């Protein structure tokens, strides 16, 4: 059924959907790369920095592109004209993951940024491990969001 609905999607929705999906893939890819690199860094300062830069240079732009695409397709599909109680669950899950997730991403970037700064004086590894934990939580949340957005439960 979802496939048929997708086939009926007007062409004018495709580009905003591409922007949204491309941003989401960058975001998830950046989070995965950052988490993988930081998790295997142990005490390697260069690797801890690399993990943080993956979050800053890949995941953050991905989040911005994903969120712009989300709002664009939301308006195109006319969801903004519906009352809140008619908004389906999958859309609510997507917005929750995008907005709360964006806040968590911002916190992890600030915590990680302080961690990277402190690496110069031999500290900061603990803060970067906290960034790793937040990245893994975000990854899990975005897996649920991707499942909700593509499976469209409810």
């Amino acid at each position, binding site marked *: 059924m*979802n*496939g*048929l609905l*997708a*086939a009926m999607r007007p*062409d004018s929705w*495709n580009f905003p*959907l*591409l922007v949204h*999906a*491309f941003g*989401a*893939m*960058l975001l*998830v*890819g*950046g989070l*995965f*790369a950052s988490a*993988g*690199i930081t998790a*295997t860094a142990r005490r*390697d300062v*260069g*690797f801890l920095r*690399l993990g943080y*830069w*993956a979050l800053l240079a*890949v995941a953050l732009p991905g989040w911005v592109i994903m969120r712009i695409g989300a709002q664009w397709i939301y308006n195109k599909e006319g969801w903004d004209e519906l009352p809140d109680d008619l908004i389906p669950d999958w859309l609510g899950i997507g917005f929750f993951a995008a907005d709360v997730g964006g806040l968590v991403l911002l916190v992890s970037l600030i915590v990680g940024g302080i961690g990277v700064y402190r690496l110069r004086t031999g500290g900061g590894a603990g803060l970067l491990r906290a960034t790793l934990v937040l990245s893994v939580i975000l990854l899990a949340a975005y*897996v649920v969001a*991707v*499942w*909700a*957005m*593509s*499976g469209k439960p409810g």
Partner: protein
Amino acid sequence: MLALHVLSAFSLVAGIITFWVLIVAVRRTDTPEGTLRMGPVSRLANAVIGIGMGGTIILGIWLAFSVGGYDIWDWWILGALVLWVIAAALGQRAGNAYLQSVKKAQELEAAGQTGPNAELLALNRTSDGVVLQVLVSAVILLIILDMIWKPGA
């Protein structure tokens, strides 16, 4: 099933992005230890690429047969299958290009040479590997465009 198919695509792209981060990082690496340090992350990236490639093709074919309105011989589905095969072949060649530097790093380490090595740096900066990775990324982007626009559907 569609959700799992899309999650597989995300897994594949996550692996490709991780390799991009490693490709950028390894360009400044001239020691065997630094090169081999990328091993655990690259194995992780390979694993999610494997899950992504397998999941997208198996679930994609299953969806083509099970979802009404679509057929396996639809042009956009045939196009995606051809692009998937091209991406797999290019990805394997990209991996082989970077395997040269891993082998060199292992040889140097076995010989007790732990310092910077110009030949290793040159292998880590392989232009073939970068070009192949660009091509893989472009083909995957084409598949995403094909999946969204579904030309001919």
